[in-house]
């Protein structure tokens, strides 16, 4: 556990050693507010809640989270530092977990900086703060899911741009798994049972119920399993391909 912490701290520190962290945070805050106010009509609706804000998070994350996750492993492989890291007395798991947690913590920090919105709605009216908290948790889980997927894509390649594109596509598929545009691609050649299974994997349906303020154990379990699955996949990919 101690090694996970050490790796996480180094990784988090490296975000802030370059302008990447600051640029990301600024863009995230600007886009999140812009979506909430202009597209979501946060003011015009006349309701004291943050639904217009949270509703756009899946689309915001679709492009911004792969931008964080793309460098996780691709950069280590490109610069060769992965050889240095993996020959230290640590396990592959500690490295995978440490780097994932660093990326998640960073995303959480960016999300936490949206707190002025929360203050604003509390100033304007009396929102259901429990529901807002649940939505924040849902958003965090969504970010974690995207990061796990993006991290896995990053482990597949040495090229960060490829990692970004793979990440966006993979996140898009999982996000919209319940929608016809994805399901139709499978319907013609998979049995209905499997198509239904794919449909139930959709991020969006699970996220939307949490974003409305309903913390269901099944949704939490869904995110936990999805994250776990992609972290395991990352470890497997690295184990096979780290030296290539």
């Amino acid at each position: 556990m101690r090694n996970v912490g050490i790796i996480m701290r180094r990784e988090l520190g490296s975000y802030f050693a370059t302008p990447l962290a600051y640029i990301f945070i600024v863009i995230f805050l600007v886009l999140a507010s812009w979506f909430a106010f202009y597209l979501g009509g946060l003011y015009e609706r006349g309701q004291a809640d943050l639904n217009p804000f949270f509703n756009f998070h899946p689309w915001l994350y679709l492009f911004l989270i792969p931008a964080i996750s793309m460098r996780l492993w691709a950069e280590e492989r490109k610069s060769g530092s992965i050889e240095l890291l993996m020959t230290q007395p640590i396990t592959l798991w500690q490295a995978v977990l440490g780097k994932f947690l660093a990326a998640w913590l960073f995303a959480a920090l960016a999300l936490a900086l949206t707190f002025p919105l929360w203050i604003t709605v509390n100033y304007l009216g009396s929102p259901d703060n429990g529901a807002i908290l649940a939505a924040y948790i849902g958003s965090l889980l969504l970010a974690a899911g995207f990061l796990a997927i993006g991290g896995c894509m990053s482990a597949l390649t040495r090229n960060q741009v490829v990692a970004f594109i793979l990440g966006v596509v993979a996140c898009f598929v999982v996000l919209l798994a319940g929608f016809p545009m994805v399901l139709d691609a499978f319907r013609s050649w998979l049995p209905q049972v499997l198509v239904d299974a794919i449909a139930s994997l959709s991020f969006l349906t699970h996220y939307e119920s949490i974003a409305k303020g309903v913390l269901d154990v099944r949704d939490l379990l869904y995110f936990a399993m999805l994250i776990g699955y992609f972290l395991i996949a990352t470890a497997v990919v690295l184990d096979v391909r780290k030296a290539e």
Partner: protein
Amino acid sequence: MIKTEHLGKRYDTLVAVDDVTFQVGPGEVLGFLGPNGAGKTTTMRMLAGFVTPSSGRASICGHDVEQDTLAAKACLGYLPEGAPGYGEMTVRSFLEFIVELRHLGAVARARLDYVVGRLQLQSVLEQSIETLSKGFRRRVGLAQAIVHDPPVLILDEPTDGLDPNQKHEVRTLINEMSRDKIIVISTHILEEVDAVCTRAIIIARGRIVADASPQGLAAKSRYYNAVSMRLERPEQLAQVRSAVAALPAVAEVEVSERESRLTALPRAGATILPALSELAARQGLALKELHLESGRLDEVFRTITA
């Protein structure tokens, strides 16, 4: 102790390392030689636990690199090829990161100060690694490899990219550490083998083709015990050449007009120096130089790996 038994690695159809078996004990400095792509780096990576062997076994200090990976890695200091690092980190924070991962506890501070002093990194401590020169980068890589005072060191091309002074400094460091450590270095600089190694393994196309002391290797050279002489008067070369070639113990004579040098190669096991100096005295040759060669490593290297 480093031990490998029939160690092998294949990638699809390519055999990178094939049936490599050797042992290295304390006090030995093993030089790993071979052309580029011969399998040196792959072998070292398998020892360091970075590449999984396809066949055979390897152990470091008795810990199998596959079964008991963490213990094996804990005994090992490893400098990867090209000395990679985290470019955006400063030298100080990078070394602190390594020290933390090595769990050095109370001696952490002292060890860090020691390697910084030993490798003369004081001036670049606050610089980010990506801005360092090749030489400094290599020294940072060496620093992270020795910071935990490991009993076994595996260094992949430790002097690559260093200037002659820095090379000398690194070799001195390796010589100092060799007393109580097991050290394996890979290199294609043959003078390095003479300078630091007690033993050399030549590897070509994934296989060990020679395993001997540097002197033992040099003894395989055609030039082992050859005699080389430079004449004061170049016009005598042709005449001396036929006289030398007529000597029964001489197998072959090579002449370099440019240096007015003549090199006589002995028949296997023969000693020709006395015969040649007598010849020189008898003919009253004026010599600039006369010396006995101890064998040429580069020639052995080319013959074995060709």
